[in-house]
């Protein structure tokens, strides 16, 4: 229950409280205006005069744990780390993942996805696929938020975009080094793949920057714990 506080006589006189409020907002005004003016002449750039971000030019820093657009992690040879166990497809509450598994040539690896599609128009960004993956093969750390598209078809990601987050539809050419169900043309005829728009993540390869490959490598080399459960996200 909200108990109403009795106003003191000073507060009920109204004018002093108004002056206090105006003084508060004026303080912000003078401070911010001073720094805006200083910024104009190139001074005090490290002090911000506003708490807002000028979005398209100045993206807001994102938390590392934020769930953003998906990506598939790779092995050293460029094949996907995914083993086609269908865990993510099964757990997905929105049923936006479609996997078709194929036989991997290496007998030590069970399978690999011949097809791996995510329909972002259906995805609810719950992150269950990342949680459930036993191979650390799918991640949601690309920091790509602007996934808007003009058609439903453009919202459907396949392995080309998932393995290389810098790609946007339309993907110019297929450069995946393993056999898969590919809707794209022969790479030799089209030329090298060109990113349509870069992701917000600046500074080259997302995979390398996130230290992703190394982490997965380490997780793999660690001996299996006694209880048989490998800690997630290591």
């Amino acid at each position: 229950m909200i108990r109403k506080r009795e106003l003191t006589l000073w507060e009920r006189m109204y004018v002093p409280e108004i002056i206090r409020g105006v003084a508060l907002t004026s303080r912000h005004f003078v401070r911010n205006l001073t720094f805006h003016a200083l910024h104009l002449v190139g001074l005090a750039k490290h002090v911000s005069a506003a708490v807002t971000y000028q979005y398209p030019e100045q993206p807001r820093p994102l938390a590392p744990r934020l769930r953003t657009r998906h990506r598939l992690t790779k092995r050293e040879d460029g094949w996907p780390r995914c083993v086609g166990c269908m865990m993510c497809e099964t757990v997905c509450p929105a049923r936006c993942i479609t996997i078709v598994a194929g036989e991997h040539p290496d007998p030590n690896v069970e399978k690999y996805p011949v097809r791996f599609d995510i329909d972002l128009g259906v995805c609810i960004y719950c992150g269950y696929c990342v949680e459930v993956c036993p191979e650390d093969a799918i991640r949601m750390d690309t920091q790509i938020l602007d996934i808007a598209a003009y058609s439903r078809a453009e919202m459907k990601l396949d392995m080309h975009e998932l393995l290389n987050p810098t790609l946007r539809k339309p993907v110019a050419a297929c450069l995946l080094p393993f056999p898969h169900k590919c809707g794209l043309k022969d790479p030799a005829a089209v030329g090298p793949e060109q990113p349509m728009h870069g992701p917000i993540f600046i500074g080259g390869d997302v995979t390398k920057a996130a230290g992703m490959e190394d982490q997965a490598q380490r997780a793999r080399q660690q001996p299996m714990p006694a209880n048989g459960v490998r800690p997630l996200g290591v």
Partner: protein
Amino acid sequence: MLETLLIKLALAGVVFFGVLNLAGLHTWIERKQSAVMQDRIGANRASIFGIRFFGLLHPLADVLKLFTKEDFIPPGGNKVLHTLAPFLSAFFALVVFAAIPIGDTLTVGGRVIDLQVASIDIGLLYILAMLSMGVYGVVLAGYASNNNYAFLGGMRAASQMLSYEIAMGISLIGLIMWYGTLDLQAMVRAQGQYLWGWLPLWGIVVQPVAFFVFLAAALAETKRIPFDMPEGESEIVGYFVEYSGMKFGLFFMTDFIETVLVACLTATFFFGGWQVPYLFPDGVHVPWGGVFPLAPLAVTLAGLASFTLKVLFFCWLFMTVRWTLPRFRYDQLMSLGWKYLFPISVGNVVVTGLALRLLS
């Protein structure tokens, strides 16, 4: 005769140029000042050839948009009154500026020009009358729109403006008693006196209570937050709900013109108008001795600059108040007007009368 007419026309042109530009700039001031007060940047996306001019192009974009929008007159509405209302509103706000002295006399070629569009002996009464007439635009807008919400908004506006006009008028009576004149130019001249040789006898010094009453009542007259019950465009639909395009723009401009007007009136009544402290027609007289002579033209220009600065300061203050205070509830508004401001202003008149009797 013709010369006088031309001079008056030129003066009116100067005043209107200043007032209308300042009112137009108020859309920019409103956006930018509120943004700076709230730690934001404010509208800055409109650009010509990639140059943004600190968002100064947004008012231009607004005007372009308003002029190209459909001019809608609701079916069943009174077409003539619906069209007339915004013009009445803006007209009565603009004509008030005729009585406001913007500076001391200017001597050009032996001819002494009073820097006031119309030297009206009863300037103060004229101002109050024109301010009251401003209600017509608002009431007609609500009445002619054939819309119950607009009608109620018009009624709210009428009762609010009438209530606060009383407090405003009575608060000014103290000033009239003290300076003994209704002529604004004479009133400003009278504010050039000094108490004990150093304290300028501005309206705020002799009538501090009247200042606060006048400020509150005048803010209510501008129909802006915290007194924006007539409009309340975001929640309670106001009297101009059935207006679109530039007719709506006129109502919007009227608000800003009235803000400038109230700033002018406050500066004129309570802050010495064009008076600069210690500046006399022959130069600066420092209270502790010493005279720095100045040319008459420089003195006049200093007066003009002083008046402009005071008006700009009050525009800033009103904008700050508008972006600081929440809206009153309607019963609080009425109770403030009738139960507090009205008795206070009447008491102020009584006290002023007693003081004058004792001092004389």
